[in-house]
């Protein structure tokens, strides 16, 4: 079974600064997807960024980028130019690749609460 570990329960960043959120995972599969989701107090889980394990290039989405280290099973999220609206819980998640075309469940870490100081 796959596991996802987020060992930092809370982090804080100054507005406009950069912050990195850590995530490690364990799997015996060679191909899979990794995600970062944002969950504000409204509870709506929002996809921030996705990484396919077979791709060596790190994914980027505007101010969000990842550092994917497959051998180390590490998947960190970097948020640049932090904004007040970035304050939320952030979850790292793993999904297997299903070659039958069906979908697979997400396995989540425990999450990290990010606060942004004005």
């Amino acid at each position, binding site marked *: 079974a796959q596991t996802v570990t987020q060992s930092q329960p809370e982090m804080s960043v100054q507005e406009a600064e950069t912050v990195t959120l850590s995530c490690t995972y364990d799997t015996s599969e060679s191909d899979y997807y990794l995600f970062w989701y944002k969950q504000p107090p409204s509870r709506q889980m929002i996809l921030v960024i996705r990484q396919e394990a077979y791709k060596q290039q790190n994914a980027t989405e505007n101010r969000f980028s990842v550092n994917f280290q497959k051998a180390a099973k590490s998947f960190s999220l970097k948020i640049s130019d932090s904004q007040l609206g970035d304050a939320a819980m952030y979850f790292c998640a793993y999904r297997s690749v299903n070659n039958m075309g069906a*979908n697979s469940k997400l396995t989540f870490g425990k999450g990290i609460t990010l606060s942004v100081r004005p």
Partner: protein
Amino acid sequence: GAGVSQSPRYKVAKRGQDVALRCDPISGHVSLFWYQQALGQGPEFLTYFQNEAQLDKSGLPSDRFFAERPEGSVSTLKIQRTQQEDSAVYLCASSAPPYEQYFGPGTRLTVT
């Protein structure tokens, strides 16, 4: 189009009552997932449908939990004889595989 919707947003039940939680997925999405999120924790998988077929129910914590999706669209998660440990946020997600899962706002269940 409209996103995933869930109702009710909040539900308070007395211990021992039955509850039913509804999920309306994005139109055309064949995959539907239910997750349970305890306070301060990450969501945990409960069950998965592809159209009306329940392909995986390995995450359901007991036989008091039952889910259905009879016409391959709306899904209902039913919890019988609720217990205090059932208090959590119940999230529904839908997708058009193999793409991303889109989540609803969740139903917060409190069992008193």
